[in-house]
């Protein structure tokens, strides 16, 4: 196949919805980087100011502007990979042009190395292999599941495999009824946003359905960038049709004909799986025009991000889709009324959407009943770090954390003790000591000054230096801060500097002054940041100071010398 010309690339994407990212990727894939010439072409084709395009391209970590670009390996140095030798692997691969990347969502099987469209995993440069992402183990508690119920069945990722256990039955049944019935089932189920915000899904869909403006859009947030989170990846890799069916149900319920899956750059295999599943579903009449022989039409487009954690924030995600600079948006207005192209839009997480087909098929009460006590439903937890059996677990909401850590996942390896865990990936900071007695539901975790969020839990045993861990978390936030708002842009930088271990690193030498600065920055970030990144980042320093004040004192003292 001959190399496509600039004009051919432009012609392929120019008239597509949300064309900027795929057009940039087309040039990036062809050349390995985005040359000046490529930017001029894209600028002219999409009538986008060249200066804006130049600036916005630089926002994305993975868009290379110069060779070797995409062909140079990127090695994960996320918090878990760092524990397991990510930095050593990076050093060993530097002679191949390797550069670091933030957590790439493979914490259950470290260390991922991304080269162009391939992810290899392994702990040594000469022992890297390509492997499909690990399936979850059978539910260790023997409990009923929702999104994982059928994921382990062979061939589940294919249309036939999906249909063998009831796939697309929910959509077919819904099309014979009213959109309101779908929304009512969701409201009954108690399903709430599984990306971490926890907004009731039925209420969101109702709001979009009630909007009179259009066309409306369904956006699946698959930009799973939170360190320690890899649950959406396993759903898309092994049960992609569940996500597609959930999106189609959202389209039917709210009156939208277009859906986007905004997929993080670091999941190239997932991209191929999704595209294949969409093609299968279209061929079978479950996506596209006249779905199931009705007048309902719904198309799904995959849009690949380019390496920016903030694009998991829905305002940034929408700006990124639209080809704008990916800053978060001021809210209100919310996406339900002013989302994609400023029109009514459902933005839901992968797990939320994958939960919808089983709920519609089996009823809201069934899902509600999966939770423990008064809690409705289940939550996927990505468990990683110093734990015997890392991986994804579907837990009933309300399950004690200790049950998951010890009974389900085997506790810390080598007979060591669990010193601390993170919550919400790293956005909930740390839990330690008596706070490890929480149950896995927002009220319980929030009572411990943290949050369950997207459900990533990293485990640190009693040999780990929590100041160093906190530093690597804050370094991530500083690296990913978008730069829009002052408290986050400056705050993440200053907190990172204060957690740095080098002697003479910036920050007060006296413990009292050090604490006052860190606490004041944290307070202003939590209260005034423009989005969740800046509000969450100080939970890291807050919990560090709460659980390990003497370690902090030693840290400050060691820097002063």
């Amino acid at each position: 196949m001959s190399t496509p010309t600039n004009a051919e690339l432009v012609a392929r994407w120019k008239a597509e919805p949300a064309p900027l990212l795929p057009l940039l990727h087309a040039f990036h894939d062809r050349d390995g980087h985005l040359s000046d010439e490529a930017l001029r072409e894209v600028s002219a084709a999409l009538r986008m100011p060249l200066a804006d395009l130049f600036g916005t391209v630089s926002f994305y970590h993975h868009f290379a502007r110069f060779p070797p670009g995409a062909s140079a390996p990127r090695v994960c140095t996320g918090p878990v990979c760092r524990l397991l030798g990510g930095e050593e692997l990076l050093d060993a691969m530097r002679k191949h042009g390797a550069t670091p990347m933030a957590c790439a969502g493979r914490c259950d099987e470290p260390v991922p190395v991304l080269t162009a469209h391939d992810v290899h995993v392994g702990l040594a440069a000469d022992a890297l292999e390509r492997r499909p992402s690990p399936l979850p183990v059978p539910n260790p508690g023997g409990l009923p599941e929702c999104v994982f119920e059928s994921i382990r069945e062979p061939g589940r990722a294919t249309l036939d495999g999906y249909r063998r256990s009831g796939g697309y039955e929910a959509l077919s049944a819904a099309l014979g009824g009213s959109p309101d019935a779908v929304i009512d089932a969701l409201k009954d189920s108690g399903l709430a946003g599984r990306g971490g915000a926890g907004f009731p899904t039925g209420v969101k869909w109702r709001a979009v359905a009630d909007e009179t403006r259009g066309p409306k859009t369904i956006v699946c947030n698959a930009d799973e960038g939170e360190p320690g989170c890899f649950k959406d990846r396993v759903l898309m890799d092994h049960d992609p049709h569940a996500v597609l069916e959930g999106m189609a149900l959202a389209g039917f319920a709210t009156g939208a004909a277009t859906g986007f899956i905004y997929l993080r750059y670091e999941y190239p295999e997932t991209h191929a799986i999704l595209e294949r599943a969409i093609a299968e579903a279209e061929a079978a009449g479950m996506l596209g025009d006249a779905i199931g022989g009705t007048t309902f039409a719904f198309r799904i487009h995959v849009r690949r991000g380019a390496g920016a954690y903030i694009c998991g924030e829905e305002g940034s995600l929408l700006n990124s889709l639209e080809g704008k600079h990916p800053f978060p948006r001021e809210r209100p207005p919310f996406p339900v009324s002013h989302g994609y192209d400023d029109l009514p839009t459902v933005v839901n997480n992968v797990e939320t959407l994958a939960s919808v087909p089983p709920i519609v098929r089996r009823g809201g009460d069934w899902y509600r009943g999966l939770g423990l006590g008064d809690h409705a439903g289940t939550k996927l937890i990505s468990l990683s770090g110093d734990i015997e059996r890392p991986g994804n677990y579907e837990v009933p909401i309300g399950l004690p954390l200790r049950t998951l850590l010890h009974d389900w996942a085997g506790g810390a390896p080598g007979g060591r003790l669990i010193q601390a865990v993170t919550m919400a990936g790293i956005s909930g900071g740390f839990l330690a000591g008596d706070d490890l007695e929480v149950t896995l539901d927002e009220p319980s975790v929030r009572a411990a000054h943290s949050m369950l969020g997207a459900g990533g839990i990293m485990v640190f045993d009693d040999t780990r230096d929590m100041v160093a861990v906190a530093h690597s978390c804050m370094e991530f936030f500083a690296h990913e801060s978008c730069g829009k708002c002052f408290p986050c842009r400056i705050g993440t930088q200053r907190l990172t500097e204060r957690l740095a271990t080098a002697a003479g690193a910036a920050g007060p030498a006296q413990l009292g002054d050090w604490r006052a600065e860190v606490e004041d920055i944290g307070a202003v970030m939590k209260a005034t940041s423009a989005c969740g990144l800046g509000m969450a980042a100080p939970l890291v320093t807050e919990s560090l100071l709460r659980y390990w004040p003497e370690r902090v004192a030693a840290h400050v003292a060691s820097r002063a010398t």
Partner: protein
Amino acid sequence: MSVIEDRTTAELQIDGETVVFSPVETLLAVARRHRREVPTLCYDPRLDPFGGCRLCVVELEGVRNPVASCARAAEPGMVVRTHGEALDKHRKTLLEMVCSENRQIDVEPLSGYASQELAELADRYQARTGRFQGRQSGKSKQDDDNPFILRDYDQCISCYRCVRVCAEQEGDYAISVKNRGFDTQITVEFDGLLKDSSCTFCGQCVQTCPTGALADRKALRAVDLPGEVVKTRTICTYCGVGCSVDALTKGDKLVGIQPAMDGPANQGALCIKGQYAFDFVQHEDRLSTPLMRGDDGELHPASWDDALDRAAQGFLDARDKHGRHSVYAVASGRAPHEAAYTTQRFIRAGFWTNHIDNCSRA
């Protein structure tokens, strides 16, 4: 519910006081209209709300975190607090953080219209404490030697007013944001020079910059001249738009121009000519008296009466010799309506010809 009804009845509470607002106002606009001192750094009333600096946050009853008042639409029944211990502490901390990222806080007022904003707020909130020391942000573009705009990004606080004014007010889209987080850098395409970008050197970015990171290079030439800077409101002489400007003088010397933010015709906008092309005023080559060519072939100073008589005679001679259509007038685009009107009367009624035009057509 009609919009008109809304307009007459919409009320909210600010710091315990019930006030009336119009439905298009933001909380910041309502607060400032009622003389609340709400600090801002990323705000320029001509631009779309942005919500970057977060200094304008106010407490809104029923909402957990303070909200950015510049970006929040006023709604009936809102209960708003613009000041309080917590808010003032946040603002002071934010300003201390901002101060920590710049080389210096005090900058020369000749830098630009808004250049004192950071220094004034740092004083008002007593934020010059030296806290939060660490790496500084922004890198100056020292190789850009254009004569108009100093790009001293060491002083940049990433408020993006320059980027936004360039896009929203000027429509030039010359300036953009590179990188992210603390590595954010204001730039142009391919990190180049302004002259190679789509910049028109209108100077709007300079005048909205709150820290002097973008500064008026021409005005800064006068830093060492003795005397205070005096601002005199006048109208730009370049074209018929009639932009209001403040002429900056030191002694009897014109040293710079700043746009008048309250100018009815321009609301702070200017073009490169109005902003920077004032050197002719005191240029040594500028004519300050009429000149008439003498019998010796040289130009000699003359009175206005003599010069006008000579010019009139020239016109009449041409008409008598070549007919009424031998005269053609092009009125200056810089002239006001009244002068343009007088010119066409002079040509049509004086010479009986329609040979009249205006350079603005070119």
